[in-house]
């Protein structure tokens, strides 16, 4: 079932009323004097995989930056777990359990796999625990634990980024362009892990330019164009709207 941007349902199925764990209300954001988000409304339910799709330059990454408090909005509210956290510090949200894997992985390319995982020990967990979880989830990382991260393939770097993000035991995981520059088989492997993580009750927000990759693992999806959410709904319904959204038919 799909809803219009105003939130009115367009189909007969009732929407389950669950308090969202993440909510953006009327978010506007700008880089200097250039406004890139023009009133974004978004809500993510607990344990849900929510895909935010849209063409390049739609404002998806900016939305994630506002959500994770890396960038203050110029208007609107960020509500997390029912509390208005607009203007809070990113490190406070990260400590509470919101983890973001940014576009381009965000790993330290001059450190080894092991040293990158060591960076996540600020949570209080031992390196051995983090390594066990990371290498259990991504066997390829275990084989390359002493390798400098910048010399690994794109897919392996993305695995390392995910392992490091998951080491913080997040309740909300934000993934920005997970599949960028990766081979389809690697993307499939990574999204398999995403789906498995979601089964554990983690709420996941995924931003993707290549929509069909992520629709297979999503509970709901939204299309963003020119700084506004154009449609929200179930993956099958959203997929039908994709081509017009990307090619400017709407």
């Amino acid at each position, binding site marked *: 079932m799909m809803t219009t941007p105003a939130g009115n349902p367009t189909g007969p199925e009732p929407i389950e009323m669950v308090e969202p764990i993440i909510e953006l209300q009327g978010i506007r954001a700008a880089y200097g004097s250039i406004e890139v988000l023009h009133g974004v409304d978004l809500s993510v339910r607990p344990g849900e*995989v929510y895909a935010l799709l849209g063409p390049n330059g739609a404002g998806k990454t900016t939305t994630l930056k506002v959500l994770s408090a890396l960038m203050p909005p*110029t208007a609107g509210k960020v509500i997390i*777990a029912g509390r208005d956290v607009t203007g809070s510090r990113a490190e406070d949200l990260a400590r509470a359990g919101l983890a973001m894997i940014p576009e381009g992985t965000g790993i330290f390319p001059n450190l080894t796999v092991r040293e990158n995982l060591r960076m996540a020990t600020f949570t209080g967990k031992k390196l051995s625990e983090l390594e066990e979880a990371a290498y259990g989830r991504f066997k390829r990382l275990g084989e390359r634990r002493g390798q400098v991260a910048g010399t690994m393939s794109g897919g392996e770097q993305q695995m390392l980024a995910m392992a490091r993000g998951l080491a913080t035991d997040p*309740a909300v995981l934000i993934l920005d362009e997970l599949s960028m520059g990766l081979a389809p088989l690697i993307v499939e492997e990574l*999204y398999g892990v995403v789906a498995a993580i*979601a089964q554990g*009750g983690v709420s996941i927000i995924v931003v993707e330019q290549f929509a069909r990759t992520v629709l297979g693992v999503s509970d709901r999806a939204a299309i963003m164009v020119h700084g506004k959410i154009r449609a929200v709904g179930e993956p099958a319904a959203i997929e039908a709207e994709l081509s017009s959204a990307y090619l400017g038919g709407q």
Partner: protein
Amino acid sequence: MAQQDSGRSEAADAGTVPGQPSGGADGASSMGPRAEEFTREISELKLSGSSAETEARALKLGIAGLVIPIVMAIVGILLVMSTSDAADQRAYASQTFWLGNIIVIVGAALFIRYSLGRYLRFWMIRLIHEQRAQTDRVVEALDRMSVRQD
């Protein structure tokens, strides 16, 4: 790549998650223990009057702090000129002088902090992107060198 229309249950089989608790069938609407812990931690966060417009307001306050002392100086001059009593003139002059100075210092500090802060944030983001691009180029060059040596 095969498209998966049936949602995440099939895709989950492709991943291994050691130590992860199994989710319920309706994972999209249940609040697991980690989510409840997250909600509790968020509720305990110490947030000081969060607002989306803090920066913009502080910048406007800073500008006001730079303009108000000018107005105060004009008012002070008029007050001094309106009386011939030397003691009153000194009182008007010193009050507007000291108060005006305090306001202009605070206003200037706010203005510099919130205008420079935004500029420096963008500069740092750009620096990070450039360093990342630089690292990618170095790695590429090293790869090409190792291929040639082979």
